[in-house]
């Protein structure tokens, strides 16, 4: 089982500040996804990154896949209360194991108005 460690586990910041959360593994993934989960709901996909070094932007959110495809980061610019939630990364193995996604431990983000 490939492990994905996310840091920090908890983050509470003021509205308007910038932040970065990290997703790290010692293993290589063929792709990596980021999900956001709100209370009482299931996770919802934000983005998928596939290529090493890839950067994707979703409004104020910037996602990067590490060159070696072992890690990823999510940067939020000018955080808003609507960004509050649990952020989960999930890695897809290549080859014969690629029917499963391995989820990270999660970062619980709170944006204070």
């Amino acid at each position, binding site marked *: 089982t490939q492990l994905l460690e996310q840091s920090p586990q908890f983050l509470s910041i003021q509205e308007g500040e910038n932040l970065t959360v990290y997703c790290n593994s010692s293993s290589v993934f063929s792709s990596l996804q980021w999900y956001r989960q709100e209370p009482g709901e299931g996770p919802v996909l934000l983005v998928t990154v596939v290529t090493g070094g890839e950067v994707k932007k979703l409004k104020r959110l910037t996602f990067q896949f590490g060159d070696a495809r072992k890690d990823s980061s999510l940067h939020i610019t000018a955080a808003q209360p609507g960004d509050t939630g649990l952020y989960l990364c999930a890695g897809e193995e290549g080859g014969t194991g690629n029917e499963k996604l391995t*989820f990270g431990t999660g970062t619980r983000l709170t944006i204070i108005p």
Partner: protein
Amino acid sequence: NAGVTQTPKFRVLKTGQSMTLLCAQDMNHEYMYWYRQDPGMGLRLIHYSVGEGTTAKGEVPDGYNVSRLKKQNFLLGLESAAPSQTSVYFCASRAGIGISGANVLTFGAGSRLTVL
């Protein structure tokens, strides 16, 4: 479209009781998954299915059984519930692998189970 529907949403059991969680998807997805979510541990895969009539063990399968008799349904059973199985359970489905846009998981809203 309803997407992925889980029933029940909440359930309280006594130790040793049995129950079944039902997951239904209306997207004609091949792959279905059961995860459990516990504080600080993200989502852990219990069992999954790559098609009707197939099941496979995930990361934490002990104490659970599953069945996929119909493509649209994936059942998770607890034969003898234990307090350690208190958790929030999520079902998810995806279209397949190697298909553009197909590797996205669609989740249900979760089923909160408490075992006393």
